């Protein structure tokens, strides 16, 4: 109880101090899984957000930005509780983060009820932004990413595919949109496998894939699990059996790609970001991120980076008004050049519009990279475009 009192006192003190400085302090609350199985996502987003603030200072439009990060351990009710507290405690004007779909979904009612903008920086299920008028997204949606490879594959000699996705909304999103586009372009999905989200061993599934005799395996698994898949793919000799590995970029996450070794070489994926993207913005981003964390940034990191950028830009554009309605209005239609390339926020769906790149894993400067060789420009989320 004493500790809580202390926290309250501290919060009051901070608020008081900010008032004295005569310019408003705007608190941005990031809710992320910082421990537990999805900790790497949380860390990447947090580091990138901090990097953005480091590079651009904490002053925007006369206001001071203060970043608050809290760990929801990946449990949805905790996410919701933290969101509620951040808002109720008065300080937090913008919520951000959200590592997984259920976590974002749990917080959505809070954003709606409290009229607080909520910037989704990682979770990638299509429907999230429909859950509240106050949600904008700077990561990507799976249909967006999956459509790229579904267009590319049939044109490049891949006619039959087995899909293997993690059994939760993003996976099903990926499976659905890939299958739809791929079949429309004349491909055939031989079998659809769904693997449990928490799955210690891919070997039986991979064996099934092999026995199916399809031309390629389309894969979606959450960031971090990709390596196990990649190893199994190689161990089973699927490549030698003439099978190609394609997927969304999650499976060749830049975070761990380099450790995957030769197994990953030649994998073709479609995604919105590669650390190897050739642009000045990206070079600054990559070198800054490396200096801060020692690692290469991945697509989660770029979501966090752009998320902060969107928040900064919205505050600036909204001028003196930092209420939820003004901020979300400012976010709509916003466009900028991200490390990943040109992006904008769709004014209707508040979802991100971005280029989807087709990339192949190659060795560059002694490290494995996703090297972009084709691009589909300005892709809106196909998951919502249809509706």
């Amino acid at each position, binding site marked *: *109880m004493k*500790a*809580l*009192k202390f*926290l*309250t006192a501290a*919060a009051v003190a901070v608020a008081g101090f900010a008032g004295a400085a005569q310019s408003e302090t705007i608190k941005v609350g990031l809710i992320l899984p*910082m*421990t537990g199985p999805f900790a790497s996502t949380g*860390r990447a987003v947090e580091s990138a957000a901090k990097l953005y603030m480091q590079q651009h200072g904490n002053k925007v439009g006369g206001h001071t930005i203060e970043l608050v*990060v*809290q*760990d929801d351990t*990946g*449990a*949805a*009710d905790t996410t*919701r*509780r933290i969101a*509620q*507290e951040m*808002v*109720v*405690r*008065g300080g937090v004007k913008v919520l951000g983060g959200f590592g997984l*779909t*259920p976590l974002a*979904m*749990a917080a959505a*009612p*809070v954003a709606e*009820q*409290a009229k607080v903008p909520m910037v989704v920086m990682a979770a990638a*299920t299509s429907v999230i932004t429909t*859950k509240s008028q106050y949600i904008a997204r700077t990561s990507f949606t799976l249909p967006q990413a999956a459509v790229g490879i579904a267009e590319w594959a049939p044109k490049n000699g891949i006619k039959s595919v087995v899909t293997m996705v993690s*059994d*939760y*909304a993003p996976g099903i999103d990926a499976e659905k949109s890939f299958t739809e586009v791929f079949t429309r372009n004349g491909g055939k999905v031989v079998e659809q496998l769904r693997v*449990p*989200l928490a799955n210690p061993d891919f070997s039986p599934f991979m064996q099934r894939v092999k026995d199916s005799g399809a031309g390629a395996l389309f894969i979606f698994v959450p960031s971090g699990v990709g390596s196990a898949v990649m190893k199994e793919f190689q161990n089973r000799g699927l490549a030698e059996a003439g099978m190609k590995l394609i997927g969304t970029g999650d499976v060749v996450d830049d975070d761990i790609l380099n450790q995957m070794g030769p197994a990953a070489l030649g994998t073709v994926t479609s995604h919105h970001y590669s650390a190897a993207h050739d642009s000045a913005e990206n070079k600054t981003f990559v070198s800054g991120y490396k200096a801060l964390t020692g690692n290469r940034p991945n697509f989660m990191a770029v979501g966090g980076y752009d998320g902060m950028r969107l928040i900064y830009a919205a505050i600036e554009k909204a001028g003196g008004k930092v209420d939820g309605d003004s901020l979300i209005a400012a976010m709509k239609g916003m466009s900028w050049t991200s490390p990943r390339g040109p992006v904008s926020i769709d004014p209707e769906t508040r979802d991100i519009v971005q280029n989807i790149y087709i990339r192949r894993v190659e060795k560059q400067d002694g490290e494995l990279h996703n090297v972009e060789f084709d691009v589909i420009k300005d892709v809106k989320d196909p998951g919502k475009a249809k509706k």
Partner: protein
Amino acid sequence: MTQPMVSPKPWWPMEVGFFLIPVAAFFLFPLHLPLITEMMILALFAVSLDLVLGYAGIVSLGHAAFFGLGAYAAGILAQQGWGEPLSGLVFAGAVAGVVGLLTGVLVLRGSDLTRLMVTLGIGMMLFEAANKMNWLTGGADGLQGVMVEPLLGAFQFDIFGHTAFWYAYAGLVVLFYVARRLVHSPFGLCLRGIKTNRLRMSALGSRVNLHLLAVYTVGAMMAGIAGGLLAQTTQFVSLDVLSFERSAEVLLVLVLGGPGRLYGGIIGAVAFTVMHEVLSGFTTHYWQFWLGLVLVLLVLFARGGLLGLVDALRKRAARGTASAAAPERAA
């Protein structure tokens, strides 16, 4: 009227005082209401486990099964259009209770390890089932669109968590009162007997299994109501209400507070939540380290949880100079 007394004299004033603390907290920490609400729900959950574990001696690593069932029952009911909260809670308790009754038969025999694993197995199966039954539970994305009507038709669940706070508080107080009566009743005494000496109990003619089944069902119902409270106050249910981590956490909370004394569950919930909150405030990334350290030290130097520590300190104070901890550590 003091003689003859079977139970130790209840200390009503102190107990009433104890339950006034949350009321005080409401006014002292108005910004932390969601946290305190969550704490009270966790406390209720831990008390329900205490009935099963602390009083009947059934070690469970799958108690979240009932919490989760209650949460989904209440959540789905509200999602399907029946948003009245109190009847939703009753429904949550009933569903969890029925499943408790059915699965309770399976945990009546075996060693601690066997029970640990059977409860865990049942919990994991429910988790997998909820994951698979996408159409009903929303699967891994969680249950969307839980619309809870105003409490008693008058109090809307608000963003500040006022209604949620009083709702959870009332739930905790009422069910704690039930649990308290239960453990001080002949049935409660009988459970303590079964826990300490099952052989003797059956030699006294006791229907041991029937009693164990009964308390397991009651524990399941209470856990279900706690789950229902969580679903209604957060208006969201996700798979992790059924997860192994939640079972392990509630066990930890209870052992931390001190099992077999009802208040242990509450004290444990408060201590755990505050520790978690404060530690993760200091270090968002590595709070687990300090929490682990506290647990290890607590076991090394104070058996029987925090209430055990209090007892030991009281004894030591009573004895004056002699060290009370020494004989315990020798054991």
